[in-house]
């Protein structure tokens, strides 16, 4: 039982972590909290659904394409809608209330667009993962193995990209101080687009990864956003290692809670954890990092 729950918890936690990574990337890069991020998970899941179920493409290629499409979609949304708000006053400073409302509005618009295209019905992404693996006495569908490999691989690539490439270094510079980044000769607006596109692409991967185990549905974004958000806050808002750790904690906590206490209240556990962590450590586990940014 426990092994079973842990594998599920870690897998779902890694999906939350991917979503939280995007939320934190956007927060540290653009100084905004992106409330439409769950809708990019949803769109990613639908892209995956269309690519796998309708176009018959294989799973990894679908993940990759969904990531690219959602990333480009994110770049357009940021350029056309958000930048008007974030660039007011000469910088990408905290755009405050306006940006929060704009994010919620965008979430509703994206949901409605998805509804017009795909309708309200839920679908599962049909991937043939083969026979379940045996761990001891437990049978685990291989979809969890996919989640594990893809998300860990993606995190490793993200880490290497940020640490070892010129663009990665520039992204870190933009996140830390935009004026100085500009004076380094960095094309700051371009980097902002890159950061946003990257975050939305990550969200889409999260969507395609849970597509085979959860239903892909127009309203799925909201719950994922809240979980990702909880993960980001638990880890310390804006901190990337924190986002990963927070995601894992939320995933494991929720799965154990659902398994041992009550499955019908599954979605409450994330918030119990969130409240508990915030009471003990108000800035989250890696809060220092997030704080030194301001």
């Amino acid at each position: 039982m426990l092994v079973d729950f842990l594998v599920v918890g870690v897998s779902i936690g890694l999906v939350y972590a991917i979503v939280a990574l995007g939320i934190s990337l956007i927060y540290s890069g653009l100084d905004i909290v992106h409330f439409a991020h769950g809708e990019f998970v949803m769109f990613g899941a639908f892209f995956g659904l269309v690519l796998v179920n309708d176009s018959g493409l294989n799973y990894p290629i679908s993940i990759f394409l969904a990531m690219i499409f959602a990333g480009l979609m994110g770049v357009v949304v940021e350029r056309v809608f958000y930048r008007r708000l974030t660039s007011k006053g000469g910088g990408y400073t905290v755009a405050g209330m306006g940006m929060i409302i704009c994010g919620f509005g965008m979430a509703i618009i994206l949901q409605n667009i998805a509804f017009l295209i795909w309708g309200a019905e839920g679908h599962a992404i049909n991937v043939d993962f083969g026979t379940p693996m045996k761990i001891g006495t437990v049978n685990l569908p291989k979809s969890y193995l996919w989640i594990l490999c893809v998300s860990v691989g993606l995190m490793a690539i993200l880490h290497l990209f940020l640490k070892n490439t010129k663009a990665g270094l520039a992204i870190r510079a933009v996140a830390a101080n935009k004026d100085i980044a500009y004076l380094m000769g960095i094309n700051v607006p371009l980097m902002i687009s890159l950061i946003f596109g990257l975050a939305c692409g990550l969200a889409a991967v999260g969507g395609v990864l849970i597509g085979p185990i959860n239903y892909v549905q127009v309203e799925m974004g909201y719950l994922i956003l809240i979980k990702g958000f909880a993960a980001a806050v638990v880890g310390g808002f804006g901190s990337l290692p924190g986002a990963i750790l927070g995601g894992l904690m939320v995933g494991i906590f929720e799965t154990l809670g659902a398994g041992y206490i009550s499955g019908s209240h599954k979605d409450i556990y994330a918030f119990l954890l969130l409240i508990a962590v915030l009471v003990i450590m108000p800035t989250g586990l890696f809060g220092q990092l997030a704080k030194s940014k301001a």
Partner: protein
Amino acid sequence: MLKVRGVETGYGRLKILRGVDLDVPEGSAVALLGGNGTGKSTLLKAISGLLRVWSGEIEFDGKPIHNRKPNEIVKAGLVQVTQGKDSYPGLTVEENLKLGAHSRNDRDKIKADLEQIYEFFPILRERRKQMAGLLSGGQIQMLVIGRGMMAAPKMIMLDEPSAALAPLVVLDIFRQINKIRAELGTTILVVEQNVRMALLLAEYGYVIHDGRIHIEGKASDMIHDENVRNAYLGGTVVETANA
């Protein structure tokens, strides 16, 4: 090399610069002096593109650069080192220096230039793997100057390199600036409140007061000028002293 003509700018609706004219000939070092809050940093921000120019013109290397994006101005060869000793405290010393070369693509040359910066400031080599936030004030000043030089600029603008540093450290830093100048021939515009240091480095000086250039002249003359000291100390500037 740099020509500033009638530049006006400010923050929000507040006008700070009220028509500034200033020239920095190629290969020269020019000092911009003035008391607190007189608009020195504001002028540098306007030149480097961080601040929109309301009216007037700025020309660099024969081309207009006012209201171009800061990254384009860096690419053109004009680099600003800000006053706040703004390193990236969360990045290593070497990452900071590499960021300075972001606008360049000549990889081998960048490597050689990094070595050269380490020659100028050996302490940076020693601490290259450490977070920049762990450096002392003087070391951070060396880091941000070195980082500016990593862009291989034709001209560098230094905003108060002596601020908040001990006299001996200031002396050391100005010695290195002089050496960089002698070896690389970089044109320099230095903003300072340390009048003596700045005028020893520069051939020509400007004193800015209340958003306008009040005094200008040869550094060797200015260093003995009462009015310069008054202006620097925030005393009344004698209007007839306008050169």
